[in-house]
């Protein structure tokens, strides 16, 4: 398949691995930001093939995982309401709140639907004028333009039965938070390719300079990831704290200006809670005052709902690269995809889910 097979070429992968082995003179810790990259690494066993000197730690780039528990509790409450059609990406439905998830709300009679785009949710709103349609707008900068566009169009068309629960987060503030932590071990980053497709890589240049780390935007296929690891390693070995783009088929320095403009029209930067991690200043997006009538949390008066995390779940440490999923005492014991303690065990981008699905009992592989 074009644009896929080239990036899964075993020979190319082997050559890159040889080059990585040849160039690594000491131990380096590299974090891949994006949960999609984590899954590709674990699924393809790239971590098994790397030399011991290269340690990959998994980053916070799983939007479902970092959506705060209280947002989920508020979503559950809204989804259970009569006359509400609650729409969400499929991943969100299995994320546990304090006592239930959206699937359980659906089985109890809530109208909860999976959509593939927020614009589909908007169409449901057009088709069902007597219902209130709520979309769970989660994601990093990647989903922000489409989510913003849905709200923008709703405003333009005067669709008043549509609203969103916003849990939009941004990568650079999270990287700064990780690098500022006293427990930080990360020496270089693979930046999330699709986030950079929207935002470009210009905004990572000050982060690289300030924290003295190389940052390499890369893709999701094995050859992309190995090339990204090799480039990060070369920069580390040479002591260069630069941003080098290896996802050139998708990412430019300035990014997608139209998408950025759409985000800015609808959203403004806010402080935001990250599930398991805590408050990261300036790391989130919220609706601008002009669009606040589309804020589902206000519309349904659930802003007072608060919730606290299970103390057993260590997903905060996992999301910051401090703890590997299988080093968590609850991993594959109290915490499984069927009975998750945290979102990292159920999201298709969660590191704990990747380890559980592809690596559990790794000693027997």
């Amino acid at each position, binding site marked *: *398949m074009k644009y896929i097979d080239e990036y899964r070429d*075993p020979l190319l*992968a082997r050559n890159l691995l040889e080059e990585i082995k040849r160039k690594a003179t000491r131990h380096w810790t590299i974090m891949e930001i994006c949960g999609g990259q984590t899954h590709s690494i*674990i699924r*393809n066993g790239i971590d*098994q093939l790397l030399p011991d000197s290269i340690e990959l730690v998994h980053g916070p780039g799983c939007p479902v995982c970092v959506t705060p528990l209280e947002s989920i509790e508020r979503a559950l409450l809204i989804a259970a309401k009569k006359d509400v059609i609650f729409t969400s990406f499929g991943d969100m439905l299995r994320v546990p709140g304090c006592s239930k998830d959206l699937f359980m709300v659906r089985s109890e009679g809530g109208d909860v639907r999976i959509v593939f785009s927020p614009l589909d949710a908007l169409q449901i709103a057009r088709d069902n004028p007597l219902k209130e349609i709520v979309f769970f707008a989660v994601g990093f900068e990647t989903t922000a333009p489409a989510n913003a566009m849905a709200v923008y169009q709703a405003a333009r068309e005067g669709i008043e039965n549509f609203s969103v629960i916003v849990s939009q987060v941004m990568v650079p503030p999270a990287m700064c938070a990780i690098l500022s932590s006293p427990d930080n071990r990360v020496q270089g980053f693979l930046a999330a390719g699709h986030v950079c497709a929207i935002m470009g890589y210009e905004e990572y240049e000050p982060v690289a300079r300030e924290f003295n780390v190389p940052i390499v935007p890369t893709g999701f296929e094995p050859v992309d990831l190995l090339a990204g690891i090799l480039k990060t390693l070369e920069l580390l070995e040479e002591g260069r704290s630069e941003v080098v783009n290896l996802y050139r088929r998708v990412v430019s320095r300035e990014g997608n200006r139209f998408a950025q403009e759409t985000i800015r029209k609808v959203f403004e930067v806010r402080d935001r809670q990250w599930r398991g991690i805590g408050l990261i200043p300036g790391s989130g997006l919220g609706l601008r005052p002009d669009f606040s009538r589309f804020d589902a949390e206000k519309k349904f008066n659930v802003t007072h709902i608060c919730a606290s995390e299970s103390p057993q779940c260590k997903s905060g440490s996992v999301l910051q690269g401090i703890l590997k999923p299988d080093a968590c005492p609850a991993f594959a014991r109290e915490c499984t995809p069927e009975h998750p303690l945290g979102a990292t065990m159920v999201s298709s981008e969660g590191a704990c889910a990747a380890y559980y699905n592809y*690596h559990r*009992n790794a000693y027997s*592989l």
Partner: protein
Amino acid sequence: MTIAPACPLPLMQHETVQMAHGAGGRLSQTLMQRVFMPHLHNSFLDLLDDQAKLELPAGRTAFTTDTYVVSPVFFPGGNIGELAVNGTVNDLAVGGAIPLYLSTGFVLEEGFSLVALETIVMSMASAAQNAGVIIVTGDTKVVGKGQCDSIFINTSGIGTIREGVNLSCCNLKKGDCIILSGTVGDHGMAIMTSREGLSFQSHITSDCAALNGMIGKVLDAVPMIHAMRDPTRGGVAATLNELAHSSSVGIEINETSIPVKPDVRGACELLGIDPLHVANEGKLVLVVPADCSETVLNVMRAHEHGRDAVIIGSVVNDHPGMVVMRTVFGSRRIVDLPLGEQLPRIC
């Protein structure tokens, strides 16, 4: 001139299913005579008794049942009717049985098109004929609009188990070869890409087929096959996990050997789905002693439903209960059961 007030005659010609079609009265008879009997009639059904009286050949009997709720009812490569016949035929055949008789029960939603119903019944008749089975008894119920979705069909089947054949999920032995009859994921992706809300077009068609013909030929040639399954819901991954678990052995498969059609692969890539987790309706997984594998492959490849048959892996003593895949890069990963329902109402 005066027109005498008259009680209007009941309307007997309908284009859609009415509640009265399931009430046992005149409309029920009309439905029987106009839609079901012209296509399904045979010496058992023609008696219109409440039961079929069967004489079964000597030996062990296999008995199975399944209910079909696929949505949409008509999908690329088939419809719910042929799925309901082929699915039950396959469930009998993978147990080493020669499928003989089927029953069928319809739950129809008020307002469902009678033309569509007749098309489905015709497909069932033709699928039954192709598979060499007879539909000997049936039932129809009608429920109100919104109380079911268009049409649900149950089929049960009876067959006679071949002499000298002992197929079981518990039979796997170290060194056995795992054979797959062809490409994976065709049915599931045909359904998925024809669902509303997924606005992309593809040419993927379901692999829905009766496999008893091919299975018969394989068992004639190699009766000592250890296990056989049709990898429907949960796909090949679920089937292999069930086999590994039941026999307390490990299974190792090679990523490079799994056949996937380019369209199916593309759709899976777009939707982020592993083709090994996607349902099939005309594929077979066989576990055979290594020294018989070539014979089995040759018999299968000579059959239209087994042309792409291939060895995908083997049974090992390591990691009992677990399926492990060797990736194209030489690393290894677990192939797990899919979690939850990937797509509801796939069959």
